[in-house]
């Protein structure tokens, strides 16, 4: 695949005296995790296609501090937050979009009190707005008739009440949206939140991602759609554990849209 991604940084924009429409907060997973990097690129391809003026912080971006805060390390969280706020405010950032619900929640809810006040939106909401404004068109051809189930990320759904944007996008693909028995506000966690991603689970009789993968498989899906790089990892591992990787794919909403556009 020929990659010709246009990814300006805030520093480059500033040098040209420009302010982008939106700052894309890539996040640690989106920057470093091999699976999540694909989501990042898919999202950038859509931004490029839709001629959205955006920029990233690049090497000036640092962890939001979310995993430290959920682990109980408020010091480390606030240090990270204040450093990031200094950078963001230095660029006079107004609007931030991110493909990670954890970054989204932290930037949106926990930064304002510390001096970082921005309009923060999740990439599914942003894609939905592009669609509503006619800046993005989706042709569902390749997903027509496919069964897609959406796994609600806790920090997008329950934490911030965003349930519809990702589902609206799936419906635009002409796909059949099938709900798991536990969905939306009753959705079951994938097992990664609260810094669990970075440690082994406590003794129990099952891994949480297996329990959740079983919920998803009950819907007999072709695709499990995710909106979070961590959920994506957990569900992908679950599918591997069930030896279903041949039948069921785990994909981010941004990847579904990008694929629909042959991007």
């Amino acid at each position, binding site marked *: *695949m020929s*990659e010709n*991604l246009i*990814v300006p940084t805030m520093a480059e924009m500033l040098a040209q005296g420009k302010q982008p429409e939106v700052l894309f907060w*890539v996040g*640690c997973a*989106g*920057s*470093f*995790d091999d699976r999540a990097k694909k989501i*990042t690129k898919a999202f950038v391809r859509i931004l490029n296609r839709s001629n959205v003026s955006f920029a990233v912080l690049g*090497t000036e*971006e*640092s*962890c939001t501090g979310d*995993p*430290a805060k*959920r*682990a*109980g*390390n*408020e*010091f*480390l969280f*606030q*240090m*990270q937050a*204040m*450093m990031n706020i200094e950078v963001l405010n230095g660029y006079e950032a107004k609007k931030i979009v991110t493909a990670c619900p954890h970054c989204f*929640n932290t930037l*949106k*809810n*926990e930064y304002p009190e*510390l001096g970082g006040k921005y309009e923060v939106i999740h990439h599914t909401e942003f894609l939905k707005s592009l669609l509503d404004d006619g800046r993005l068109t989706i042709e569902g051809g390749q997903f027509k008739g496919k069964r897609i189930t959406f796994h609600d990320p*806790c*920090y997008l759904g*329950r*934490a*911030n009440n965003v349930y519809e944007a990702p589902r609206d996008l799936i419906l635009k693909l002409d796909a059949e949206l099938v709900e798991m028995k536990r969905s939306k*506000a*009753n959705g*079951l*966690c994938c*097992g990664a*939140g*609260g*810094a*669990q*991603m*970075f*440690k*082994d*689970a*406590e*003794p129990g009789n*099952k*891994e*949480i991602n297996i*329990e*959740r993968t079983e919920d998803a498989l009950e819907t007999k899906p072709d695709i499990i759609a995710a909106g979070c790089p961590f959920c994506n990892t957990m569900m992908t591992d679950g599918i591997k554990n069930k030896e279903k990787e041949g039948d069921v794919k785990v994909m981010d909403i941004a990847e579904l849209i990008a694929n629909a556009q042959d991007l």
Partner: protein
Amino acid sequence: MMSYLDNVLFALLLIIGFGYFYNNIRKIIRNINLGVAVDRKDNAKARWNNMAMIALGQSKMVKRPIAGALHIVVYVGFVIINIELLEIIIDGLFGTHRVFAFLGPVYNVLIASFEILALLVLVAVIAFWTRRNIIRLKRFASSDLKGSPKNDANYILYFEVVLMTLFLLMNASDLHLQNVSGGFSHFIKAGSFPVSQFIEPLFNGMSNELVMLLTEIFWWLHITGILIFMNYLYFSKHLHILLAFPNTYFANLNPQGQFDNLESVTKEVKMMMDPNADPFAAAPPADENEVPSKFGASDVQDLNWVQLLNAYTCTECGRCTSSCPANITGKKLSPRKIMMDTRDRIEEVGRNLDTNKGVFIPDNKSLLNDYITPEELWACTSCNACVEECPVNISPLSIIMDMRRYLVMEQSAAPMPINAMMTNIENNGAPWQYNQQDRLNWKNEN
């Protein structure tokens, strides 16, 4: 007619019943105030709205339709039948009999609806008992409830059966005397008895005097039972019938994902990051009202008062635990147990205060370790399922987070991989060992 002595006895009964209750409520308020201050006076409109919808309107109860419907029956029954209590108290104090009978048809409708509700409550309570003891729903059979909590739940159900039965027996015997041809004593024709009319034949063949005695016995047992039940609340999980209202009013209004930023930390971080700060400067004069704060919570006094109110409000229904991903997959964590432990510990601290004239004498115990273990705390994914589920907006998650903060910031007692993750964030701005300078490499990778 009741004698003068009866009225005095009744007044005495009321004074003892309400006096003891008042005393215990004061204790609860004192114990809740052991918690740290937190401002929950903002946005009164949203708070009233929450209370109206969630506590009064039971909006979250009905998310589980069977339990929700049964609960509404008992709840409405409880509230409506208590209107009858007003008549009982007036009758008892002034020696009147069915003082509201002058309302005529309205009175008939009232008594009839009390009776129908009493019957429905009986049916619902039997269903509740069956769910706990015969069907043994998972959330009622779990280890959290072993022993006294299980008995507590059943005692409450038995109480309700006894109270509703006494109410119906009282009406049935009264109706029997109302029907005596030519009338009997003060038993005027008043009220409509759609349920107790079927119990009334029970008294056929008894002398009118005996039935009158029984009526009085039922009446006294009923009001005494109500007063005992009211005072049992303090010792049981059943306080939610009162505390659900303040609890929903003072509950967190922010998005569930927003965790509070510790102000004490903000001060220190700002100092650390201020290039003009003099690291050798003397500490600013201490605010005399400021308690030397520790980071996070290891005991109930470190929690805020809303978290302690949460603990008293919890009625141990277990919806939180049944939706907790850690608990579902066999981990030790149970959000319900977090709330029960918190309440048990406040009660212990409260008894300590009682026996030591209001001064807490350290007992070498704490909420952390003696009640809640680190293993439970570290199993939480912070997914907010427990908070979402709670029918009265309790947040077990906020207690878990405050205790993790203590473990990490006061004791440096995080699991090893968590320490590694935090070291990575500190050193290279990501939870993994990647160089911050490589953050944009993805752009050029294929």
